[in-house]
């Protein structure tokens, strides 16, 4: 074969693979509002930066007449590219080829790019769109999943791992996303569950649609399995690209720094934070009045909205924010918000991202459901995560810091580097109402007018303890600051903490209460 002919032959072969499952299957994919595997990758990575590998890999199934079947690329696309110039490894399951089902070679392609990502210490993005295990390949496809999960675990905390659910992801397949750092879902397209509606109906008689069982909204709002929710694939890809700008390539480096910018929103505490600690406001307004360009990239916006987590930049550098949200459930800590915050704190710690904690919470959510759901062990996760974190940890107490919640929200006692408090802060064992009822129980009960006495004692307690100065007098907070100084002081604290270096006792690993 002449060189020219062999080049033409190569092109023809590649074009055939690029057709995936063929026109008809692609039509079906598009009709569902979905892009094809290669289109998705190209929409995420920088133009012209994608290189695909293993195009000519063939499946090895022989049972059930699979031997005669040709499956383009064995239903998965793998490759490397860049996002805003940052290198990444990526794979995308191709639903048009045998339903994106996972057989031995399909899995081997995925583990190849995973190994590559770990070796090169660059982020891994996995796009899931698959009917699940390729039943015809039997135990080989189970082996494939196992190899993927193992690598997810091995890479955890070393390189960022991102899962994008753009189709079904059912049965064992869901455990790869669950092991990764961030899961992206799209309304009407993502479907995740262990057991599908058909089986649930036949076994349990419960009739539920795929969307109601494991749709994007369910995972973003109810289960907490998803971190980012989008209305379209396009919006989802923008979210992924934005996330990549905030996180480092791996655990040995910092996230890329951007040119510093002043916030767009000027902090006007009298406009945002009500003086009455029982009145709500949106904590995100405070965050946006602190961060560069007033930008805040929120994570898990819909799940456990009583705590807010996400990334912003301070003087051009990525910072993780953990903040109680008085707007939802009074900003209480509960099972879900503890889970949410704890995992994020550990993420920031693993990837060298300083943590700023904004505190305004009345305590833990009371209720039998909370106690029985294990709020003790869930709540302990926050304590654990803050205590073990060695990245710079800075707390600003805005209003309420009561009881166990005060300790949990990155207090001095958990090795916070800097603890600041606004003059509106109330650091106390509990709120004045509860404390007065206990401390002055006898006086109130014996008073001629118990209610008047109660109010008087609440006021007494308020005057004496509902302020930052008792804690400041013990050195538990470092400085009481004026609200409009917050950004300036945080920038200073971050600058001082830049080369923080502390060691914890050496161990194989701790035993966080999960």
């Amino acid at each position, binding site marked *: 074969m002449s060189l020219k002919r062999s080049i033409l032959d190569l092109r023809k072969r590649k074009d055939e693979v690029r057709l995936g499952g063929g026109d008809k299957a692609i039509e079906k994919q598009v009709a569902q509002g979905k892009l094809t595997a290669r289109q998705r990758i190209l929409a995420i990575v920088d133009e012209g930066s994608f290189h695909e590998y293993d195009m000519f890999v063939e499946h090895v199934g022989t049972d059930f007449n699979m031997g005669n079947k040709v499956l383009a690329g064995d239903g998965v696309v793998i490759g490397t590219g860049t996002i805003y110039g940052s290198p990444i490894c990526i794979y995308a399951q191709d639903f048009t080829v045998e339903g994106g089902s996972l057989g031995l070679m399909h899995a081997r392609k995925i583990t190849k790019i995973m190994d590559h990502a770990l070796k090169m210490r660059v982020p891994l993005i996995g796009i899931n769109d698959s009917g699940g295990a390729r039943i015809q390949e039997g135990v080989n496809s189970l082996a494939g999943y196992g190899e993927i999960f193992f690598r997810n675990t091995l890479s955890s905390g070393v390189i960022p791992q991102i899962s994008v659910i753009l189709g079904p992801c059912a049965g064992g397949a869901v455990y790869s996303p669950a092991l990764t750092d961030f899961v992206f879902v799209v309304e009407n397209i993502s479907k995740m569950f262990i057991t599908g509606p058909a089986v649930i109906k036949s*076994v*349990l*008689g*419960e009739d539920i649609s795929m969307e109601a069982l494991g749709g994007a909204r369910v995972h973003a*709002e*109810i289960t907490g399995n998803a971190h980012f929710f989008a209305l379209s694939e396009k919006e989802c890809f923008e979210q992924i690209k934005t996330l990549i700008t905030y996180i480092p390539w791996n655990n040995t480096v910092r996230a890329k720094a951007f040119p510093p910018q002043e916030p767009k929103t000027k902090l006007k505490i009298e406009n945002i934070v009500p003086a009455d*600690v*029982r*009145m*709500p406001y949106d904590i995100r307004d405070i965050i946006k009045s602190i961060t560069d360009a007033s930008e805040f990239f929120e994570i898990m916006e819909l799940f*456990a*909205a*009583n705590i807010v987590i996400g990334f912003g930049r301070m003087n051009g550098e990525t910072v993780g924010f953990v903040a109680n949200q*008085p*707007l*939802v*459930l*009074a*900003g*209480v800590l509960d099972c*879900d918000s503890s889970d949410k915050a704890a995992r994020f704190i550990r993420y920031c710690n693993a990837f060298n991202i300083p943590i700023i904690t904004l505190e305004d919470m*009345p*305590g*833990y*959510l*009371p*209720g*039998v*459901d909370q106690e*029985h759901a294990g709020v003790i062990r869930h709540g302990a996760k926050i304590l654990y995560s803050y205590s073990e974190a060695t990245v710079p940890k800075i707390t600003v107490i805005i209003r309420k810091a*009561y*009881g166990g919640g005060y300790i949990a929200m990155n207090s001095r006692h958990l090795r916070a580097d800097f603890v600041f408090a606004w003059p509106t802060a109330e650091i106390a064992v*509990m*709120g*004045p*109402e*509860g*404390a007065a*009822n206990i401390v002055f129980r006898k006086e109130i009960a014996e008073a001629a007018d118990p209610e008047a006495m109660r109010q008087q004692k609440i006021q007494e307690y308020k005057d004496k303890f509902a302020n930052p100065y008792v804690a400041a007098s013990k050195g538990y907070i470092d400085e009481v600051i004026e609200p409009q100084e917050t950004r300036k002081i945080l920038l200073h604290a971050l600058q001082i903490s830049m080369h923080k270096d502390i060691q914890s006792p050496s161990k194989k690993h701790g035993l966080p209460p999960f």
Partner: protein
Amino acid sequence: MADQENKQYIIVHSAKYETTYNKKYLNRKVWEEPNFNLIKSFIPGTIIDILVKVGQVLNGRDSIVVLEAMKMYTDVQMPFKGKIVKINIEKGQKIPKGFIMIEIEPVA
């Protein structure tokens, strides 16, 4: 997030905070005192066999019902020594989770 127009409150340590509820909070299960005299199905399934009659007195751990669920036969037993007061199921009946199958009362 709930409608911010509707004022909602959370009480923590006697203090009443104005806020909004989320979906999970609104849908939380309200706790009820368990009644051990009601033998409920812990899983949806099919009644394969009823081994007792009304009025019968049985010891704790005696089998009373065979329930098929998840392709398995489950032996439903008396939680303590007691008398069968009422039977609410028939052989072959499909029942949902939490269905009161048998009512009993303790016998000293």
